[in-house]
């Protein structure tokens, strides 16, 4: 479970990352994938007040919203990094949306999906050093401020 730190942002090296949309994908053994938002996303949004996921059974094309996230200063979609059907949502997020801030890669997962065409979708995502470098570039180019963890953060290791 390695990770790199870029500009104080934790970038796991074992997850498939959609750098453009600030989301990640973990491939599970049962053929489903777990999807969430990255440390960069939580930092940009600030403390999150509401997180509403689409219901299980919803089919989503890649790039369409799987959840709506509201913070004090922002509202926006979490865009699905894969096409497929939502099979499970993280019920805990409704009661405790700050999990997205404190544990974006573990307790703050958003939905589990049954992907339609995983191999093709994963090919568009980045993993490992490639993802870290892509994030480093994005952070520089878009002048993204250093990640803050004012709600605290769990150790990714």
């Amino acid at each position, binding site marked *: 479970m390695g990770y790199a730190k870029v500009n104080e942002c934790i970038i796991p090296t074992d997850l498939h990352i959609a750098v453009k949309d600030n989301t990640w994908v973990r491939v599970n053994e049962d053929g489903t994938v777990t999807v969430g938002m990255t440390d960069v996303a939580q930092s940009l949004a600030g*403390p999150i*007040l509401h997180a509403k996921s*689409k219901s299980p059974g919803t089919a989503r094309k890649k790039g*369409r*919203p799987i959840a*709506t996230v*509201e*913070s*004090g*200063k*922002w*509202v*926006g*979609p979490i*865009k699905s990094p894969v096409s497929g059907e939502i099979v499970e949502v993280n019920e805990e997020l409704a009661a405790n949306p700050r999990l997205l801030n404190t544990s974006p890669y573990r307790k703050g997962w958003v939905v589990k999906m049954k992907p339609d065409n995983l191999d093709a979708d994963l090919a568009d995502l980045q993993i490992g050093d490639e993802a870290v470098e892509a994030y480093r570039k994005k952070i520089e180019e878009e002048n993204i401020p250093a990640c803050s963890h004012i709600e605290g953060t769990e150790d990714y290791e």
Partner: protein
Amino acid sequence: MSKNIGYPLDLKMNHYADVSYDEKERLFEEVKADERYHHMLYGCYECGICVASCPSAKFYDFSPRVIAQALAREDVDLIYTLMEDSIWDCSQCFSCDRCPRGNSPGQLITIMREVAVRNGLASAKKALEGYGRIIYKIMSTGSQVSPDMLQPNAFPDWGVHVNEIAENLELWRKALPPETLHTTETGWTVSDKTIIELYLIWHMTGVMDLIEGIDEGLFMILVDVMEERLEDAGYDITFD
């Protein structure tokens, strides 16, 4: 070197992309084509009454006189600079309406802002960024402020009782006599008929196209909510 040396309007320059002169001229023509435009601008003799009455001028590097002057001179470059910057410092109080010549820099700014929004200018996106949540709430639910926004950590200045109220919010709301106020996620009960009508109005008047140009993410989540509800009500409408 002091930042105040030089042309004051250049202070925030280069925070946005420069565009061709033709594009600036096109934007200005769009401002001028607004039917209100010629009722707002009659020439300026630099008396400074508008600046003296302007609350924004007291706090920002902003001057309503510059707006009237730049437009009257048809200074296309400066007008673009103002549209990417200064016009968002105006509080739209219209104190400047006391102009002895009958100019209204505030209302000229209204037009300039509308053109900036319609054309998706970077300044418009930035200025409206902080309103995303409000727009989302109003447009998806039909009411703006909701009781569940009463988050103790978001409003520490509301005192110790805010915790107690937030914890038992549903109960507190039920204590209010009108049943339409027994809500937590919206300010009041919004009927299906009302919300469907609102969605249809926004769809038909092009409001959704405007939002798509300004904030794609906001557009996406609004459409998601609206399409589903419209479908349930028997309307086959897509926004994309």
